[in-house]
């Protein structure tokens, strides 16, 4: 049996509220809160980035997996905010957890889908018998342009999964991917902030691909929406996951445990993976979980997991995702936030 043997999350402690951002740009906070179902978002400290959050989430996954990191044969980091333009994030992660030097490492990039890409490849290498354990992390410290709608949601967080054949916590029952070339969101080289296609990001982009992958994997597995205990969709805002859930026949209560976006924001490559860590935290043996990511450009990866008895032994070996979302919170004013995110121009 192949699947997740350990999982871990990491969320920085800083938050900024929608009101605090709206105040600066003269925008109407209630309409953002209602329209996008967003209240606040996480913000990394100046000493946190995709690499540091990857390391911390991976350490939490290792605590639950309780394996020797030397046995990890693949380390993948999926992100659209790798700190270096040239130099891998994965090597730092592999070195920090003690998986080097006999390990395959790669950085993935596919807007918000990079995290599940790494998961797909790590799981596939385990299935093929090429490696004993594979680690995949989805992490981002994404930025929206000041005043842009994305500024209210672009957040920071990481989720890590170790795949293997022994000590399985959640069996990987099925995988499915759905891709087309769709220019809904992009950032060219040397550009600091991304561009997006406004309303074009909805129907032909998010909804088409998430529905495509969701329908595809359920058909492939011979399952319907009511067969699942929980479902996690990519969360660019609060509304999209519920709307797409309805389109696929899911109810609110199946979505809610993994729906973190109103207090967390959109953690891009970490978004649906963090929804999965939060859902595993509260799941019981036998539960069936569907996760469908979405990355602009565009495509979705889908996985079906079935929770195993070992969940009871491991869930409290590392902090729960909800706990990371609630403990030791530090609210920022816009000025501090702008400093933390290097939005202020200083003298050379």
């Amino acid at each position, binding site marked *: 049996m192949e699947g997740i043997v350990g999982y871990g999350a990491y969320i920085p*402690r800083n938050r900024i509220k929608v009101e605090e951002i709206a105040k600066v740009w003269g925008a109407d906070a209630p309409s953002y809160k209602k329209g996008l179902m967003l209240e606040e978002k996480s913000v990394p*400290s*100046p*000493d*946190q*980035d995709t*690499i*540091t959050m990857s*390391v*911390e989430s991976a*350490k939490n996954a290792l605590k639950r997996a309780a394996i020797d990191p030397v046995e990890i044969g693949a380390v993948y980091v999926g992100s659209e905010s790798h*700190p*270096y333009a040239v130099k891998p994030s994965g090597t*730092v992660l592999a*070195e*920090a957890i*003690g998986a080097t030097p006999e390990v395959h490492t790669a950085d993935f990039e596919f807007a918000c889908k990079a995290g599940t890409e790494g998961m797909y490849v790590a799981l596939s290498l385990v299935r093929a018998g090429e490696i004993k354990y594979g680690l995949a992390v989805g992490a981002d410290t994404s930025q929206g342009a000041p005043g842009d709608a994305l500024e209210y949601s672009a957040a920071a967080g990481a989720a890590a999964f170790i795949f293997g054949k022994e000590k399985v916590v959640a069996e990987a029952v099925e995988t499915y991917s759905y891709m087309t070339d769709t220019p809904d969101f992009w950032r060219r080289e040397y550009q600091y902030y991304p561009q997006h296609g406004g309303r074009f990001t909805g129907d032909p982009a998010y909804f088409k691909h998430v529905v495509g992958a969701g329908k595809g994997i359920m058909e492939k597995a011979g399952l319907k929406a009511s067969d699942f205990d929980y479902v996690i969709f990519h969360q660019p805002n609060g509304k999209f996951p519920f709307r797409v859930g309805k389109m696929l026949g899911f109810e609110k209560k199946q979505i809610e445990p993994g729906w973190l976006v109103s207090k967390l924001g959109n953690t891009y490559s970490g978004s649906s993976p963090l929804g999965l860590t939060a859902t595993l935290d509260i799941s019981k043996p036998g539960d069936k979980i569907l996760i469908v990511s979405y990355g602009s450009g565009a495509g979705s990866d889908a996985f079906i997991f079935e929770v195993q008895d070992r969940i009871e032994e491991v869930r409290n070996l590392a902090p729960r995702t909800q706990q990371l979302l609630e403990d*030791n919170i*530090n609210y920022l004013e816009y000025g501090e936030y702008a400093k933390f995110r290097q939005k202020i121009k200083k003298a050379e």
Partner: protein
Amino acid sequence: MTTPSRYWREIPQRYRLEANKCQSCGTVNFPPRLVCPECQKRDLVATKLAEKGKVISYTIIRVPPHQFIDQAPYAVGIVKLDDGVNLMAQIVDCDFEDLKVGMKVRIEFRKIFDEGEAGILCYGYKFVPD
């Protein structure tokens, strides 16, 4: 100025807290040594520092070295780790008024500094409240 080669040499300590322990008197050396400074024996085995401990002293740095200017003011503390080793590092994610001698902390992996806009990024350990 931290050169890439010096940073690279220190990676086992900066990333993984690799140390060694004297088999005859129990002294833990960080960074690892060839000869025990306490008993002069050479019987040392590899170990890792404990990742939790208690603050025994701290100060607030307001006038920092140039690589740390953007981080100031910040707290630096000496922590007695659970294995008895004293380790100095920044204490972050904690408001200054909440800092206390005796408070429990643990290690987190953070960016320590960068060498300007174009240089290498230096990662390592800091303390956070536990």
